[in-house]
């Protein structure tokens, strides 16, 4: 089966040439693929390139972006506009900034629908699918009344208006607190499971990638240096940069776990919370 999306692109900005250098990536239908890299390494550039919006940032893209067998880089503006939103949806990094402050939520949905001449419809079902209130009054609000978590759910609903086969999620959880982050990740997983939407999940947060993605690609210095099933990459990283990334995942500090444990249970045994080798070294008579 040919992949849903297959890209091989190089991107230059006037002041920053070679942001992406022959970056290759494949996404299959119904799959969630993670793209991980450091900030400023061109992760968002990938989404802009796929949507053909690099021009707004002054960037130039060469190579090919095969989406459902068509090379998106060869489409004209009009054809490209039919792809945006209808066949590829975008979930942004900062949901509140991505909503027009002077447009009500319903108007946002209506505009997204009208962009591709969708039929008039009741939005309750869509709102329910992203766990937002389905009553009409909710949609009469202005974006400033939403919490950032709700706004992100709303952005996901916006991206799903035309049920595109592919969602691009550009660091969708980096502006959210831990609990909201977990909820949004659950929502992505559910949409993927129930509606079969494929996803390119871009993040620098490895923990969220590990919990969500089927496969993961590691971006470093404009290239994908490693790509494979999430479990394989995390357990057996091949590239030095990947190892560096994994080593940098923060761990909850042992001491605070111990303090917490002691507060809850007076008979807490410190060794229980420690990693085996650490516990062993603490109890060894000679250091």
């Amino acid at each position, binding site marked *: 089966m040919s992949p849903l999306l297959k890209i091989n692109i190089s991107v230059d900005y006037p002041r920053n040439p070679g942001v992406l250098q022959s970056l290759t990536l494949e996404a299959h239908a119904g799959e969630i693929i993670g793209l991980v890299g450091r900030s400023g390494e061109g992760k968002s550039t990938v989404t802009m390139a796929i949507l053909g919006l690099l021009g*707004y940032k002054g960037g130039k893209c060469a190579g090919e972006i095969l989406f459902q067998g068509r090379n998106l880089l060869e489409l004209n503006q009009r054809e490209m506009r039919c*792809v*945006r939103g209808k066949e590829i949806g975008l979930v*942004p990094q900062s949901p509140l900034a*991505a909503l*027009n402050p002077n*447009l009500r939520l319903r108007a946002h949905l209506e505009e997204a629908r009208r962009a591709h001449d969708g039929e008039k419809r009741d939005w309750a079902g869509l709102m329910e699918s992203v766990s937002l209130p389905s009553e009409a009054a909710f949609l009469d609000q202005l974006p400033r009344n939403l919490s950032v978590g709700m706004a992100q759910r709303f952005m996901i609903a916006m991206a799903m208006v035309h049920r595109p086969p592919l969602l691009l999620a550009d660091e969708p959880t980096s502006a959210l607190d831990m609990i909201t982050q977990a909820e949004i990740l659950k929502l992505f997983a559910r949409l993927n499971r129930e509606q079969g939407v494929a996803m390119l999940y871009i993040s620098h947060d490895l923990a969220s990638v590990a919990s969500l993605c089927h496969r993961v690609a590691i971006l470093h210095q404009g290239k994908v240096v490693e790509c494979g099933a999430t479990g394989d990459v995390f357990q057996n990283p091949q590239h030095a940069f990947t190892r560096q990334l994994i080593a940098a995942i923060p761990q909850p500090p042992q001491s605070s776990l111990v303090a917490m444990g002691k507060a809850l249970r007076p008979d807490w045994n410190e060794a229980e919370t420690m990693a085996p080798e650490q516990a062993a070294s603490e109890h060894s008579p000679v250091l």
Partner: protein
Amino acid sequence: MTLLRRGAIGVLMVIASAAVAPELWTPAHYATQFREAADAEPSGRFPLGTDRLGRDRLSRLVYGTRVSLLLAPAAALLSCGAAALMGGSAAVAGGLTETGIMALADLCLSLPWLFLLLTMRALLPLNVSPQTSIALTFLLLGVLGWAGPARVIFATVRKLQSSDFILQAHAAGLGPRQVFLRHLTPNLAPVLLAQFCVAVPLYVLAEATLGMLGLGVAEPLPSWGNILRELESGNALSQPWLLVPVVLLALVVASFQAVMPAQTGEKDYA
């Protein structure tokens, strides 16, 4: 809303409603001459006295208020419209258009505005009918005032174009028309309104300046500018009621300044 702002709105509303239909309540028409009572002091019949031609000052002041308060907003509307057109197209088109328009705006801004206004008005025919003089004053104010607001509009459109929500609108497949009408315009409107509110008191003063120099609205039609010409005779101290138009002018301009923050305040626009 602060007390000051409420007061200012109240003052403006009273003045504006008094000037809406002066025919209904002023003692006389602005051109009616009471020759038997020329240069009269204030009295029950003429609350502000009469001028050298025997015209009732209060009536002229109220009619003049109507002219000035219509002229300034109309000119502000014109200059804001021109600014939106010029600034907007410079931002959208970019390239050579942008360079050209912005260079022109900078040139206009670098010239001393009031002198430019006086020079331009002096170049145009002065011996015209009152109606033509109104139109000329209004057009000049409007045309010469475009540059400042145009720069603001240009910067705003540029900022909006690179904003996340416009990018998101493009990413949702919205066409240029949809983006312009639904995303750009509603966010530009508060900025335009602010520019309009800044321009109105400025133009009120500019018209008064032109009028005082005899370059504004032509007699017998009154405006604050040509009413203030009476002060040229220099007897304001012995005839303090001549200062009433000055007080009114100051009051209106100050009220506009006090009202403005309410209308121009940052309209959630991050």
